[in-house]
């Protein structure tokens, strides 16, 4: 059953993310990205990382995708995205080559059999309990730093997006837009 689920998820995720990368429509790209994230949380559940799967669902599918959806209200998403591509084959060669190189670099220590478990899960504890035990003992400082980082990001997001909130480009005609640009 697990191999079937893995291959199903793997094929679906790959296809959905290909749609995200290749699609010309922003709405299609975002929807397929959200669906792929949901299926990735399925992979986490297969791997026994229950808490990570739930966090993936809540943060990525719930929060990040909602932020993207709200941000898309500022842009015109009904039009297809027009992009200029000079050498498409070069893109795939470069992207694939860099990705393979990175994978080889990071897989080398694993192939060397030098990986040892630093924090094995506590016997008898469920996954969220074990995660909590490690997160609030060994990784307490990074956890606090991450919380400060999220606070900084929240303030930055409010200030950046909130500037000139009373001006709406989509509600103006071309002359008014040119006029605001001259004043800016």
């Amino acid at each position, binding site marked *: 059953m*697990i*191999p079937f689920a*893995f291959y199903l998820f*793997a094929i679906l*995720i*790959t296809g959905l*993310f*290909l749609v*995200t*990368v290749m699609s010309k429509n*922003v709405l299609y*790209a*975002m929807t397929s*990205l959200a669906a*792929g*994230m949901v299926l*990735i949380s399925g*992979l986490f559940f297969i*791997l*026994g*990382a229950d808490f*990570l799967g739930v966090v*993936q669902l809540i*943060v*990525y599918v719930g*929060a990040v995708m909602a*932020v*993207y959806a709200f*941000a898309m209200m500022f*842009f015109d998403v009904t039009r297809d*995205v*027009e*992009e*200029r591509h000079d050498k498409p084959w070069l*893109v795939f060669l470069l*992207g*694939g080559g860099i*990705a393979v190189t990175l*994978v080889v670099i*990071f897989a080398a220590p*694993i192939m060397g059999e030098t*990986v040892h*478990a*630093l*924090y*094995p*899960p506590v016997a008898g504890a469920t996954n969220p309990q074990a*995660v909590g035990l490690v997160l609030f003992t060994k990784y307490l400082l990074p956890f606090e730093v*991450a919380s400060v*980082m*999220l606070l900084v*990001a929240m303030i*930055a*997001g409010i*200030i*950046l*997006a909130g*500037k000139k909130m009373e001006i709406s480009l989509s509600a103006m005609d071309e002359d008014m*837009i040119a006029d605001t*640009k001259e004043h800016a």
Partner: protein
Amino acid sequence: MITMNHYLILSGILFAIGLVGVVRRKNLLMLFFATEIMLNAANIAFAAVSSYYHDLTGQMFAFFIIAVAASEVAVGLGLLILLYKKYGTINIDDFTIMKG
């Protein structure tokens, strides 16, 4: 039987897709989507290594990656909205203001 290598290969494929997207895309919003794909590919690799080596460190790093991704989206989209209000476009080709 699904081994760790299956997950690592899947992660590598997804990372390659994301990287192709980053190199290929000219629309900034689409560029953000591609970076999200790359971060998720790394998350899959971390979770797989964590599960097969019975070590929770990988899951911890996956949590911090998710936190970084969330803050990246908040700041990045704020900057994106600011750019759109200033120039009226989010196409990278229109931002080539340095002539040389």
